C-alpha cells in the first residue's frame, strides 16, 4: 500500500520552453502571424483589427458594424454568405472588444479554398441592407432586455460607468435606444474607418501549410478598399468616480457586488507582478477572497477578481453574488482582505503556492493549436515586447513579499474602489 501521507515529489514550473510562431508581411500587404502547425485537419483564421468600441462614435456601433458585415454584400445575401461557410462545415464568429475586433473563421483545412472568396466578398463589399439592420436591432434589444434583469449585469455596469462615464466607449454598455438609433450611415462610416480588410492583421493556427498561406495572400490581394482613418485610442482621463452606488431589482433575492478601480498602464515587468497579486486577491480557487468568503464562510457561490485593459490603463475588478442578508458582512470581509494584502502580505507557503500555480497554468495555457493568437493580440493591445511570454514567468518567480506588500498598498486601498450593489438591496433607486 502506498504511503498516502507522503506527497509525491512535485516539480515547479519555472521556465517555459515553447515554440513561438512567426510574423510575415504578405504580398497583399497584410501582416500574418502563423502559429506552430498542428496536424488536426482543421484550422482557424482570425482577421484582427486593433480597434474596438474605444473608437466608436456611438454606443453599440462597433459591434453592430462587425456583425452586420455578414448581413449582405453587393453580391450575396446574408443567407448566401452563411451558406458559403456552412455548406463546407465552416463557421465564423465576430468579437468586438474595447481595444480590438476580430472575425474568427473555423474550417476543415482543405475547405479554406471555398471559404476565402466569401470572406473577401464580405470584407470588400458589405452593404448593410436595411432589413438586416432592422432585424439585428430587434434581436439585440431583446437580448439586452433579458440581460438587464440580472443583478450581475447592473452591478458591473454601474461600477464601470461610475469610473468611465455613462454609455462611453470605455464601458461598452448601451441602452436599447442606442441600438434602435443606429443608422446605415453609422455602420458604413465605422467600417470605412476601422474595418478595412487590408488593414487587418491575420492569424492562422492549426493545420495549414505554405499553400494555405499563398491562398490567403492571393485572396487578400483582391481587397481594394483602403482604411480611411488610423484612429488613436482616446486618452481622456476617467471620471472622478462615485464611491458607492446601489440599484434595487424588485424580483431579486440575491445581491451582486462589483468593486472596481482604474489605474494607468503599467510596464511589462510590473504587469506580471500585479497579476500575481491578483491571484492572491481573487484570481484562483486558493485566493483569499475565495477561501474566506466562499470556502470558510459560505457567503457566496461566485467571487473573484481580475485585471483588464482600459483605454489608457487597467481596470481592477472584484465581483461576486451573495446572500442579501450577508451583504454588509461580505463587504466588510472584502475590505479586510484588501487591507490584509499589504499589512499581512503573502509569504512563505502562500507565496510559493501561487507561483507554482502561475507557472503550471501559464504553460498549460499554451497547449492546444489555437491558443497563440489571443496571446499575441494581448501584446498588440498593451505594446508589451514580443518576448514577453518568455520572461513573464521569471518575473513572477523573482517577485518578493515586500514588492507585493508595496503593490497592495499602492493599488488595493479599499477606499480607492467604487462599489456597486445590485439586486435585493431593499433600497429604491
Amino acid at each position: 500500500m502506498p504511503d498516502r501521507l507522503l506527497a509525491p515529489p512535485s516539480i515547479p514550473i519555472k521556465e517555459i520552453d515553447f515554440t513561438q510562431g512567426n510574423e510575415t508581411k504578405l504580398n497583399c500587404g497584410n501582416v500574418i502571424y502563423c502559429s506552430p502547425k498542428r496536424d488536426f485537419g482543421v484550422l482557424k483564421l482570425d482577421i484582427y483589427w486593433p480597434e474596438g468600441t474605444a473608437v466608436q462614435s456611438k454606443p453599440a456601433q462597433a459591434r453592430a458594424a462587425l456583425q452586420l458585415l455578414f448581413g449582405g454584400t453587393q453580391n450575396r445575401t446574408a443567407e448566401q454568405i452563411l451558406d458559403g461557410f456552412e455548406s463546407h462545415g465552416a463557421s465564423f464568429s465576430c468579437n468586438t472588444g474595447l481595444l480590438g475586433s476580430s472575425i474568427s473563421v473555423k474550417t476543415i483545412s482543405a475547405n479554406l479554398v471555398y471559404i476565402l472568396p466569401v470572406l473577401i466578398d464580405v470584407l470588400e463589399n458589405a452593404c448593410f441592407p436595411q432589413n438586416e439592420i432592422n432585424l439585428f436591432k430587434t434581436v439585440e434589444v431583446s437580448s439586452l432586455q433579458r440581460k438587464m434583469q440580472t443583478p450581475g449585469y447592473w452591478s458591473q455596469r454601474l461600477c464601470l460607468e461610475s469610473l468611465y462615464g455613462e454609455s462611453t466607449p470605455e464601458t461598452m454598455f448601451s441602452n436599447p435606444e442606442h441600438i434602435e438609433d443606429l443608422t446605415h450611415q453609422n455602420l458604413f462610416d465605422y467600417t470605412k474607418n476601422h474595418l478595412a480588410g487590408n488593414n487587418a492583421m491575420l492569424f492562422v493556427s492549426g493545420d495549414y501549410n505554405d499553400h494555405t498561406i499563398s491562398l490567403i495572400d492571393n485572396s487578400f490581394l483582391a481587397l481594394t478598399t483602403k482604411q480611411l482613418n488610423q484612429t488613436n485610442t482616446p486618452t481622456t482621463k476617467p471620471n472622478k468616480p462615485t464611491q458607492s452606488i446601489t440599484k434595487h431589482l424588485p424580483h431579486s433575492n440575491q445581491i451582486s457586488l462589483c468593486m472596481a478601480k482604474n489605474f494607468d498602464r503599467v510596464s511589462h515587468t510590473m504587469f506580471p507582478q500585479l497579476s500575481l497579486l491578483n491571484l492572491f486577491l481573487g484570481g484562483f480557487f486558493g485566493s483569499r477572497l475565495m477561501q474566506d468568503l466562499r470556502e470558510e464562510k459560505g457567503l457566496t457561490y461566485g467571487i473573484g477578481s481580475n485585471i483588464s485593459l482600459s483605454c489608457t490603463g487597467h481596470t481592477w475588478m472584484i465581483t461576486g453574488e451573495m446572500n442579501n442578508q450577508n451583504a454588509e458582512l461580505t463587504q466588510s470581509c472584502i475590505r479586510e482582505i484588501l487591507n490584509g494584502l499589504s499589512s499581512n502580505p503573502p509569504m512563505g507557503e502562500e507565496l510559493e503556492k501561487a507561483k507554482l500555480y502561475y507557472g503550471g497554468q501559464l504553460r498549460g495555457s499554451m497547449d492546444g493549436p489555437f491558443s497563440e493568437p489571443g496571446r499575441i493580440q494581448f501584446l498588440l493591445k498593451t505594446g508589451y515586447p514580443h518576448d514577453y511570454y518568455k520572461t513573464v514567468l521569471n518575473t513572477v518567480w523573482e517577485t518578493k513579499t515586500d514588492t507585493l506588500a508595496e503593490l497592495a498598498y499602492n493599488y488595493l486601498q479599499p477606499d480607492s474602489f467604487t462599489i456597486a450593489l445590485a439586486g435585493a438591496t431593499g433600497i429604491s433607486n
Partner: protein
Amino acid sequence: MIQYSQFTLGNGLRVIHHYDPDSSVVILNTLFNVGARDESPDKTGFAHLFEHLMFGGSANIPEYDKVVEKAGGSNNAYTTNELTNYYITVPHENAETAFWLESDRMLSLDFSQKSLDVQKGVVCEEFKQRCFNAPFGQLWHHIRALLYKESSYRWPTIGLELEHIEQASLYDVKSFFYRYYHPQNAILCVAGKISEEKTVELCEKWYADIEPTDVGNQNIYLHENPPNQRRFFETTDLSPNNAVFMVWRGPVFSDEKSVDLELFSELLGGSENGPLYQKLVKQSGCFSAAECFYTRGIGEGLFVLYGILNEGVTNEEGEKQLWFVLNNAKEGGFFNENDLKTAKNKATAALLFEKTSLINKAQKLCYFANLGLLRNINSENEQYQRVEMSSLIESAATLKTDNVSVIYYHPKTTHA
C-alpha cells in the same frame, strides 16, 4: 481517430489511457456513474452538493485544492441527471500528484459538519443565482416536472427546492459517498503526456488498494412512459417578453434514431438559414429568437423547441407559429439533400475540432465507456453520414401534438 487503450484494476476501476505527446499536461478525468436521477425525491440536489463536498479534503489530504495548486494544476467538476464528472489537469511532470489526490478522495472523504454547512451555503447561493436571478432560471424545473410524474428524472440537477439542500445531514452525505463513490462505479481516463506503462504503474500504486464498498450502480430506474397527451404549464418569469417552450421525450444516446433527431434539430433551428429563424424571426417579425436542440442522454433524450416573442405577440400565437414551422419541417417541406449535406459537414467539422482539445477527448472517452460504447467513439462521423432524409423525417414524425409538453412564460411585471 482518438487512440486509446484500456484496462481494469482488480477492484473494478476501469481505466482508459490516451497518449498525447504534444501536450504539456496530464489530465485525470473521473466519471462516477451517479447523478440527480439517483436521488430520493425528498433529498434532491444531493449529487451536485456532493460534487462540492468532494473538494473539501480527503482522509489523508485535508486541503485538496492547495495541493493541486502547488502542483501547478487546476481542477473542476460538473453534475448532470446521469453522471458526475471530475477532472484535474497538472503539468505532466507532476502527474503522480494527480493520482495521489484523486485516489485519496475515492478512498475516503474528510467529512465534517463544518465543511457540509459551508458547502450548503455555497450551493444555496448557486441555486439562487441560476434559478431565481436569471431569465428562464427555472426552465429545467418546469420542463422536468411536465415530462415526468414518477420517474427520478423529474427534478433538475440543482435540486427541486432550497430546503432539500439546507436539510442535508452528515449521515445523508456519508451514505451517498459509500454507495456511489468507489472503484466499481467509476471510470478513469488518463490523457496527455504520460505513457501507458506509467499509467498502469501509477494506477496500480494509488488505486489498487481501494476496496469497493458497494456493487456498481445498477442504474435501475422506474420507467415512465412518455406523455400520451399534451401537458401544459404557465407561469411568470424575469424575461421581459413572452416565451414558449415545447419539449418531447425521445430516443436515448445508444439508439441511432437519436442521431436522426440531432440532425433534424440542426436542420430546423441550428442555423440562421434554418426555417425557425428564417420564417419566425426574420420574416414574420413575431420572434426575437427561435431555436431548437436535441440532448442525447444515457437514459433520456429531449427535443426542445422554443421561441422568445416580440412585444404584442401572445403565447398562443407564438405556439401556433412554432407548430406551423415544425409540421412543415416534419414533412420535409423546408429541406433538401443539400441542407442535409450541410448539416453533416458541420457535424464532421465539429468532431474534428473536438479532437483538438485534450479535456474534450478525456471526457468523451469516459462518457462512451460509461455507455458501454467505447468501441464506437471513432465511428461517430459515420453515424452522422449514414443518416438519410427518409429516416430523419420518420424520426421527426414522433414530435406530435399529443405527446408534447408546453410551457408559456409571461413577464413578471405584466402577468395578470
